[in-house]
Each structure stands twice: as structure tokens, then as C-alpha cells.
């Protein structure tokens, strides 16, 4: 088991407050008192990154002229975002493909430099790439691996030990703990190229956590894994985060990951933050309707259900309706007045659906914006 006090650096383990505390989620708390105690782990202000991409032209002739001149355009991957993350928070970073999630994580880990704005993680500016900073965080990318491909994972771990200068006894203890938790002990001696995707991911996680980072960036750590492996990794992350109280920023396209792990969700689309709050809040904010389930006592179902809302499904004696959020009270009272109803439930639509709708909506807005821009004649 991981002991919270096992860390070399004392300042995190002696943290006095619940790690996932957020004043805006608990409006009644005396948050100003907490504010004095909690340091912001991550502070981002107006962070921007644009890439210059070169266009390859079609056709043979164009390729030849391409020898001498090239076209390029700017891609704004991140368009000025602001974000604060407290120490010990577990934040999910959601967004459609190409939204700028990976770019943000790369900026925060100092792999690339921004084109504008500022960020501070644990008091360091990431892209200065100071060793003191680099010793305190880790980045895991589900699509890439950093372990030596042809060597057993334990050799890569030993290299990490040397690079991070972890002393032997602590290294051994941390490694054994992680390996136990992830149940990969018997695979340590096997060349990484012979491991399955899930096993490899576990090894990647182990490698990343060997130096007990205070901040962990996870970019789609469960990509391509089966349900069981995903679940294992979730379980591990949850446990590890609860024990160590480290700050984690996670991107994922699997809502299960998010629901299991994070109370706070940040949604980014087209390089801008469009939502920051609780998972449940997404539904309030982005879903315009609720799902009303009616269990009728009558022999025969009423045939004119459509007048209350969109009928989703009917399995006698039950019916599911999609009802506008604003008219739910009115609909409910009129249903109850007109029919004999045994049971009623009002639910939010499934999260995946809401998020999918929202992504589609932002994509459409973006497309409209681009279309509008291209209509206005450029000087």
C-alpha cells in the first residue's frame, strides 16, 4: 500500500484540507479560510499556441514548384485559456479531437513554448525547463511510449532511477508498491515490445510515478484498452491520487474515466475553454431537456403522448419522453391530472449524449464562424 507519508518532500503530505475542495462547488464553505491554506498548483493566464503548418500542394507540377516556395497557414491550437487548479485536484480535460488538449498538456510540461500568455505549475514556468520543476511532475501519453522498446521495463526503470537520482531503497520501495498495485510484477523482465498495450500502459505509469511527482499529466492513458484494463487503470489512479493527494490533469475520450475519477471537468473546444465545473453541472448547462419516464396504471396507454414531448420509447406499460427542461413542471402536472400513473421519474439524459451534443454544437458554431469570416472580403 502507498502511504501518504512515504514521500520525501513533506509539504504535500501535511496538507490539511480535502484535496478536491473547490469553493464554487461548495458555496457554503468558508472558502476564504481555505484559500489561505491551499496553493494553486497550476495557474494559466491567456495561454496561446499556434502552429505554422506547411501545405503540400497537389499534383506533379505543384510539387516541383514546391521545391522553391511553400505555402503555410497558422493553426491556433490553443487560443488564450485561463485555468486554476488547486493542489490535490483531479481535473478532467475534455474536448473533441483537435481541441487543443494535448497541446495544453505539452505546454504545461514544457515540451513546447507558447506563442503567448503565461502559466505557472508549482511555481515554475514550464517552458523554462528547470530541473527543479522537471523533477516534480510527469507526463504520460497513451499514444507514445518512453520505455526502451527492446529492453525489459525494469531496465528503463533503473535508468529513471539514475536520471531522477532516486536513492536505492526508496526506488525499490516505490517500484514495488506501484508494480503491486498495477499487478505487473511478473512482467518486469519481459522486453517491452512483447507486452500487450494494457501491460505497456501500466509500465508507462509506473515509470512516470517512480519519482513521486506532485503533478501528473495524463493524456488519454486508457486509449485503446479493453474495459477491464481501463477499469484497472481507473482504480489505480483513484487509489493513488487519494493516497498521495497529487494534482492530476487527465484527458480522455471515455466518460467512464471521467465519471470515475474527476469531480471537476474542464471542457475545451477549438482552443477555448467552454466549460469549467462539476460533471453534473455539464448536464444543467448544456442539456435543454430531461427524460421523463412514466409507468401507467391504466390498462391502455394513452395514445396522444406526443403532445407532452418527444416520445423516446414505449414498452407497455412504460413510456419514455423527452421534455423541455423549462416545461417539465407543467407537463408533469398535466400528465398526472389526466392519467392514472403508478410511478414517475425525471432524469437527465446520459452524459455521453449531452457531451456529444455539445461537441457537435461547438463544432457547428465554429464552422459558422469560419464561414462568416470567409464571406467577409479580406483586405
Amino acid at each position: 500500500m502507498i502511504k501518504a507519508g512515504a514521500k520525501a518532500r513533506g509539504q504535500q503530505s501535511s496538507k490539511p484540507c480535502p484535496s478536491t475542495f473547490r469553493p464554487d462547488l461548495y458555496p457554503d464553505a468558508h472558502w476564504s479560510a481555505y484559500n489561505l491554506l491551499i496553493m494553486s498548483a497550476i495557474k494559466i493566464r491567456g495561454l496561446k499556441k499556434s502552429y505554422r503548418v506547411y501545405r503540400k500542394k497537389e499534383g506533379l507540377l505543384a510539387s516541383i514548384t514546391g521545391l522553391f516556395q511553400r505555402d503555410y497557414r497558422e493553426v491556433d491550437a490553443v487560443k488564450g485559456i485561463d485555468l486554476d487548479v488547486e493542489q490535490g485536484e483531479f481535473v478532467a480535460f475534455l474536448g473533441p479531437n483537435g481541441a487543443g488538449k494535448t497541446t495544453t498538456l505539452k505546454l504545461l510540461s514544457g515540451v513546447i513554448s507558447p506563442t503567448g500568455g503565461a502559466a505557472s505549475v508549482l511555481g515554475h514556468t514550464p517552458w523554462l525547463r528547470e530541473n527543479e520543476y522537471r523533477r516534480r511532475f510527469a507526463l504520460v501519453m497513451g499514444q507514445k511510449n518512453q520505455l526502451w522498446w527492446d529492453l525489459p521495463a525494469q531496465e528503463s526503470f533503473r535508468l529513471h532511477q539514475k536520471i531522477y537520482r532516486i536513492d536505492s531503497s526508496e526506488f525499490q520501495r516505490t517500484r514495488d508498491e506501484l508494480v503491486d498495485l498495477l499487478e505487473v510484477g511478473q512482467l518486469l523482465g519481459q522486453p517491452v515490445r512483447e507486452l500487450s498495450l494494457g501491460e505497456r500502459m501500466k509500465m508507462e505509469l509506473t515509470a512516470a510515478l517512480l519519482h513521486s511527482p506532485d503533478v501528473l499529466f495524463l493524456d488519454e492513458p486508457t486509449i485503446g484498452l479493453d474495459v477491464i484494463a481501463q477499469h484497472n487503470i481507473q482504480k489505480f489512479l483513484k487509489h493513488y491520487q487519494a493516497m498521495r493527494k497529487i494534482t492530476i490533469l487527465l484527458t480522455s475520450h471515455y466518460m467512464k474515466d471521467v465519471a470515475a475519477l474527476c469531480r471537476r471537468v474542464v471542457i475545451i473546444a477549438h482552443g477555448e475553454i467552454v466549460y469549467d465545473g462539476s460533471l453534473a453541472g455539464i448536464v444543467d448547462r448544456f442539456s435543454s431537456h430531461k427524460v421523463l419516464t412514466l409507468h401507467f396504471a391504466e390498462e391502455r396507454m394513452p395514445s396522444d403522448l406526443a403532445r407532452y414531448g418527444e416520445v423516446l420509447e414505449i414498452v407497455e406499460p412504460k413510456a419514455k419522453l423527452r421534455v423541455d427542461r423549462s416545461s417539465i413542471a407543467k407537463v408533469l402536472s398535466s400528465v398526472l391530472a389526466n392519467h392514472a400513473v403508478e410511478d414517475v421519474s425525471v432524469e437527465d439524459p446520459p452524459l455521453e449524449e449531452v457531451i456529444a451534443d455539445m461537441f457537435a454544437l461547438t463544432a457547428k458554431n465554429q464552422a459558422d464562424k469560419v464561414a462568416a469570416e470567409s464571406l467577409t472580403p479580406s483586405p
Partner: protein
Amino acid sequence: MHHPSYLGVFLTFARNSLIRDMTFRANFLIEGISSVSWMIMNLGFYTLVYRFTPSIADWDKYEFFVFISTTMFVNSLVQAFFMPNAQELSELVRTGGLDFALLKPIDTQFLVSLQRVNWASLGNFFVALLLLAYAVPRIEGFELSPWHFLLYPLYIVLGVFILYSVMIALAATSIWLGRNQSLYDFWFYITNFSRYPMEIYEGTWGTPLRQLFTFVVPILVVINVPARIMAKPLVSDQVFLASFAMLATAISLLGSRWVFKQALLSYRSASS
């Protein structure tokens, strides 16, 4: 807190590379044999040339063999320690693998320059030793002195550093250009100049060329200085070149470090 132990990290790199090489033993052997036979062919060529001439630019046969073994020493060291890494660097840039190197709390240039050790290339090192032992006693009027033992290895190491600087600066350009397949070619052609006694660069074109590759891109001193120390009498007119080689090494190392750092600033990672 404390600096990472660079020696410890390097030894781990060397160890891991050896483990890896040993899992692909056949490959390892082939590589060793091939680089050795390449040099033997080179030797064959010069043996052939010396059938028709007593000397080349005042280097007689055995002196020239010392020159060749110096080339082999320097090249085998460069190929063992730096070449695979420089080639890997453009691959790391292309795949975005450099991301991970940038995360580590250790000097990035150190990390990407020494990650892999190509043990097979050290085969030539031993062939060079044999050749040196064969050629040196056959040089007319050669007298072994302690200076040889001190200066020859020292200048070989300095030469390796100069070549490393050129190589890493070249490799760093792949961060700018995105991909740089001709890196190896470029490297080969540039260092090609260093493999000949500098005296052959004479005349209207030769003299400026010699000066260019001595004073601007100091690759001519890489092999010439140690080879002369070993093969030619130790006389005072070598002192200038030898001191210059020291300076050139320092400047090359600093210069290449600057280029590397500049290149890293514009690193853009790979998408996804």
C-alpha cells in the same frame, strides 16, 4: 536538490545498449565485421596507391598507416557514442519522441547525445590498435617518448569532441527542418575532408580550403593533429596547431551547444 549523476546515467545507457545489442547478436556481429572490413578496404586502396608512389604530401607509407589508424580511432569512438544518437535525433523529432527527453530533469543535450551506445563500432578501435602497433615501429627514425602516450590519446579525444560538435549541430538542424534524411550523407562528405593529411590541400584552391576547414570548421585538425604527434617528429612547429586544436575544441563545443539550445527553442513536437 542535487544534480543527477551524469556518470551513473551514462553507465546505465551503456549497459542498456549492451543488453539490447546482445539480444540482437547476429546484427551486432554483422555490424562489427562490416565496419572493420570497410576500413580494411580503405587500407587496401592506400596499399595500392603506395605501389605507385613513395609518399603522399610527405607522408610515407607507414606514416600514412598511422594516419589511417588515427582516423579509425576517432571514427570508431564517434560512431560508437554519438553517431547512433545523432541519427536517432531526427527520428525523435519526427515522431515526437523528443518530448520525453525534454521532461527529464537532466541536460537534454546530454540525454539525446549519449542515449545509445553502438558497441559494435568499437571493433574498429581494436583494428586501429593493431595497425598502429604494426606501423609505428616501421616509421624511419621513430622514437617513442612519454609525450606520445600523453598527447596522442588526448588529441584523439579532442578530435572526437570536435566531430561530435559538428554532428550534433547538424542533427539539431533536423529540429528546424522537420526531417533530415541526408544528415548522414552531409556528415560523411564534410568529414571526408578530415581524412586526408592537410598538406594535400595546396595551391590556389587548396590553401583557402585548408584554412576554411582548419579555422572556420575545424575538422582538419581532428585527425591531423594526433596523427602528426604520433607519426612525425615532435617539433616546435606543431605547437601552434596543437594549441589551436585545444581552442577549436572549446569553441566547437560551446558553439554546438548554442545551436542545440536554439533549435530546442523552436521544437514544436509532433501532432498527437
